[in-house]
């Protein structure tokens, strides 16, 4: 399973690192959604797919076409942002309720 999303250059695919994936809990789709929220800019449309994209002929001509399963990346929770060093403890303390 991987994540595909549009870029200004066409289509990019996000492939999870197995070691990081092993640290997450939930279903595979929930894990990939977490990675999308973490590694894609917030608001990026994406799809989780197991399509075979191994034929890289004309790779740079690939285009992203929205499908029915399209999702949009969201902000991580403050706890996860702190965990991944995306915000400082001071920012967390100022925003945590």
């Amino acid at each position, binding site marked *: 399973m*991987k994540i595909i999303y549009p*870029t200004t*250059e*066409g289509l*990019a*695919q*996000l*492939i*999870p*690192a*197995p*070691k*990081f994936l092993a*640290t997450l809990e939930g279903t595979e789709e929930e894990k990939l959604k977490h*990675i999308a929220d*973490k*590694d894609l800019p917030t608001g990026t449309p994406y799809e989780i797919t197991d399509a*075979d*994209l*191994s034929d*890289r002929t004309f*790779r*740079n001509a690939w285009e992203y076409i929205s499908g029915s399963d399209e999702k949009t990346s969201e902000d991580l929770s403050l706890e996860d942002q702190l965990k*991944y*060093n*995306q915000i400082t403890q001071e920012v967390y303390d100022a925003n945590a309720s």
Partner: protein
Amino acid sequence: MSKIRIQCNASGTGVLTIEAPNTNTDRTITLPDEDITLGGGVDGIVSSANATAITIDSSERVLIESSSVNDPLRIRSPYPTGSYITYSLGANGATNGYVGSAEPLVNGSISDLALRANNALVLSSGGATERLKITSDGRGLSQFTAKAWLLMNGTGTPSVADSHNVSSITDNGTADYSANFSNTMTNGSFCVVGSAKGDTKVFTLVSQSTSYARCEIRQSTDGTKSDNSHVCLQVFGD
């Protein structure tokens, strides 16, 4: 009035002597209000200390060859003159502790030395300056350890063969890959080192930010981008 009874043993022949010290001061032996049995001497423990050598204070702190410290346990041994070795656990009652030494902590052969902490393990030198922190998720944070590294296959369906502090890779196009860090860097000024398999393959850094490093693999002969089966990347910095 309670009474004092000294009872002889009918079977023994020895003489029990209670001897007074050479003193001009009245002394009192106060017994506890409970049944007790006095023990004999313990082999292997000899004291010739001329001052307090071991203290157990009212806060249950144990001090050996030390005083005026706030640690639950402190062992201090003058060796050599003017130097000492100190072991302190849970400084000031907090959950953090430290081990300090003016001499090598381990002198001689030892098969394994294990240091454990429930959270981060921090090694300092030059006083309290933090030199290496091993985080609870296994990262080694210092100026001399890799903050992240990656070995990936960029052919077919790109995949991560092995990695450290990398959550995912991005296939941006032909021979155009990004390593996305699990834990972001503190700032964007860090060093990226990379390589790819093949005599004519050149690793080129495209861009970097606190959350990723992006690279391309190009042919040295004509500069065209070419997918590669062994793309390696290491990151050093803050």
